[in-house]
């Protein structure tokens, strides 16, 4: 059932991967999101990997995940008739989101200045790699380039080895979600005064916003952070954040401050099982850490911490991820399993909350299970509104139903390659 949250709102989604999550979030909130695709399909249909390793137009896992619940129309913007058709859609829409290179829509006569004259209510979000002002505004970027430009990549990886990405590229997801927030901000006054506006989202800046304020470090503390593998780069000590265990890895950190009680609780657990070194068990826990953290740690303190980490590592190797997670929960330790897709899919917490949602994909002849509502809202539940569309699946519904074209006219558009 369509969420009531944005019921009645219509978004035209002209993005490729630069912003696809924006329309997905709007669809989850109940807006009618029309994905406007070129006649040979949106490039996101071709993003690997593919379901069952079959590279069909409906098999891209990216497409299935981030275009879910949208409608698909085909439209050739290179043709004058196609551009007219888009204008008709714009007149009947509340939002438009796109990720074209700067100036591309203007070159087609479809820039914001033109669209706002057709529909002053329109909120038009442009998702860009580098904004629209600086010397790199026309630069080409893939996700890894944006990840690098915003400072996140430099801090990922091991010293002496290349900085790295995540296997599911993240930069453009942040930019897409930012386009959704900004569009919602613009929506709020628009519903009173009837005036839309143009939004420029800057993916590079979105990546900077993932750095947890590390970006202020060089200005206030004089230096920038180097990547250090599984160690935190915290001032005053390199603390290990990922430990190996029997069947994988677990994230755990010994430290002072908020981590102090948790640090000593794991030592208590090791003592219970006779696996705390005598020097550690006898002392009743770490002495080096004060509640104010280890900013003033001495060489002896750091040695104690290093030795403790080694002891914890030996202990964790006797446990599975599941055993560690159960104890983390029971003993209120600050830790978490390094979960993979299987762990997440089988998490009892997500099951208890009925988080995952299964939708029917008739064209694939199967159901697909995917993340559910990003929040639980008491009055207006949100979540996936259906599977990702087939190419042009809603041409008749949109061009006929919304624009009022006759069947003959739609056939004509198809025959001439306009849709």
């Amino acid at each position, binding site marked *: 059932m369509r969420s009531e949250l944005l019921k009645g709102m219509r978004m035209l989604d002209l993005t490729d991967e630069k912003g696809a999550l924006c329309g997905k979030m709007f669809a989850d909130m109940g807006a009618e999101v029309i994905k406007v695709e070129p006649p040979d399909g949106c490039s996101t249909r071709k993003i690997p990997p593919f379901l069952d390793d079959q590279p069909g137009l409906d098999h891209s896992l990216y497409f299935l995940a*981030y275009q879910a619940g949208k409608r698909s129309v085909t439209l050739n913007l290179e043709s004058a008739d196609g551009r007219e058709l888009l204008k008709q859609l714009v007149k009947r829409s509340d939002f438009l989101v796109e990720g074209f290179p700067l100036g591309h829509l203007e070159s087609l006569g479809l820039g914001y200045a033109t669209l706002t004259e057709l529909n002053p209510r329109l909120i038009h979000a442009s998702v860009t790699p580098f904004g629209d002002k600086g010397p790199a505004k026309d630069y080409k970027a893939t996700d890894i380039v944006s990840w690098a430009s915003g400072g996140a990549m430099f801090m990922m990886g091991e010293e002496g080895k290349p900085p790295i990405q995540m296997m*599911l590229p993240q930069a453009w997801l942040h930019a897409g979600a930012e386009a959704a927030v900004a569009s919602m901000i613009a929506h709020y006054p628009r519903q009173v005064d009837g005036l839309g506006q143009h939004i420029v989202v800057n993916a590079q800046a979105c990546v900077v916003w993932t750095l947890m304020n590390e970006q*202020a470090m060089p200005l206030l503390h004089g230096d920038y952070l180097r990547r250090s593998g599984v160690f935190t780069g915290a001032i005053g000590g390199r603390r290990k954040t990922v430990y190996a265990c029997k069947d994988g890895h677990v*994230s755990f950190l010994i430290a002072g401050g908020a981590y102090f009680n948790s640090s000593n609780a794991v030592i208590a657990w090791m003592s219970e099982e006779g696996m705390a070194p005598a020097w550690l068990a006898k002392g009743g826990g770490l002495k080096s850490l004060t509640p104010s953290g280890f900013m003033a740690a001495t060489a002896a303190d750091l040695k104690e911490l290093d030795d403790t980490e080694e002891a914890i590592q030996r202990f964790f190797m006797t446990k599975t991820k599941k055993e560690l997670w159960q104890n983390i929960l029971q003993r209120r330790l600050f830790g978490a399993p390094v979960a993979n897709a299987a762990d997440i899919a089988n998490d009892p917490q997500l099951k208890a909350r009925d988080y995952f949602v299964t939708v029917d994909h008739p064209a694939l002849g199967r159901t697909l299970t995917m993340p559910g509502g990003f929040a639980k809202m*008491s009055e207006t539940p949100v979540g996936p509104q259906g599977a990702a569309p087939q190419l042009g699946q809603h041409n008749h519904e949109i061009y006929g139903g919304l624009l009022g074209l006759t069947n003959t006219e739609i056939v004509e558009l198809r025959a001439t390659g306009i849709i």
Partner: protein
Amino acid sequence: MSRLPFAGIRVLDFTWYAVGPVTTKYLADYGADVVRIESAARLDGLRLAPPWKDAKPGVDNSQFFASFNTSKRGLALDMSKPRAREIFLKMLPWADVVSESFTPKTLRNWGLDYPSMSAIKPDLIMLSTCMQGQTGPHRDYPGFGNLMAALSGFYHISGYSEAEPCPPYGAYTDFIAPRFAACALIAALDYRRRTGKGQYIDLAQYEASLHNIAPMLLDYFATGRVLNPAGNRSERYTPHGAYRCADEDGHERWIAVAVADDREWQALLGVLGNPPVDVRFATMLGRFRNRAALDEFVGSIVRIRGAEELTVALQAASVSAYPVQNCMDIHRDENLEAFGFWHWLDHKVMGPSPYEGQEHRMSRTPGGLRWPAPALGQHSDEVLGEILGMAPAEIAELKREQVIY
């Protein structure tokens, strides 16, 4: 300039650390009156966390806290005291939104859950955002975004191989959830305006963040396949990754490059001076099948080039590339500068200090960092006087009793 979008919206904001404050910052920077209620007896941990002004710790010296709390007013109460809770309840009818990010039992223990508050303020919108949600067996799990990034799969897909995980920096999921939470909150305000109905929003950081790895979950459910890390490997681009350039003033420099097709490959070779090329790299398929050797080849040639000049040359040849910037580089970045991203605001205690700005810009109702983050209790007198008409003598008395700070 137009009136700001959320002018007139009032928020009583109990959130702390990152997800909640970054969420309510969207409202504050766009005109909402967001009153950060800080429980002085149990400080927001970010107030104690670096980076600090002049590298000196202090509750009013943290840029980490400051950056996430612009355009808000600060009211310091000791919520463990019944008098403080009475004061809060008197303020409640004034608010449109109450937000909090404690573990679920905290507000319940204060008698401030949604049912009891909506009995006083029927159209109240309330946002609760904790790690794993308000229900379920793990609801009381305390933690930080770095742990949530491990639990949500991001650690697992980051590394050179499955045996060598290399997590994303910091509390990664703290910077995913706020955009989802802000959308939910703004949409709830719009819904209330249409229908007169408030509502309760339970946003688990975990559940919102899983949207950023949705393809691998969908794949697992459908086929049982588990995605594992493999460095900078891509199935779409090659070469693809970070390549070390010439060092500059003793600092290592890298360039990120992604090559999509034969044209871009030829363009890359042209920029690199058309070096002799191994026959295995003649076709896209050959380059995909010999990734390791290809990376070594590209790396060996790029090593003597400057990251900046190579970026300019590659982009001129229409190849995706940019320097892998460190946290100092981004302050010198001409694009962020031109976008107006960085701001120096004059904080009451810290003085002029560096804030990151907005990731977007609006043409008609531009928002912005209206003022720096509040010092602890900076607006206590002002807020209590204005909202409750509390007299200065009464405020002074409550301060003596350490109900207010």
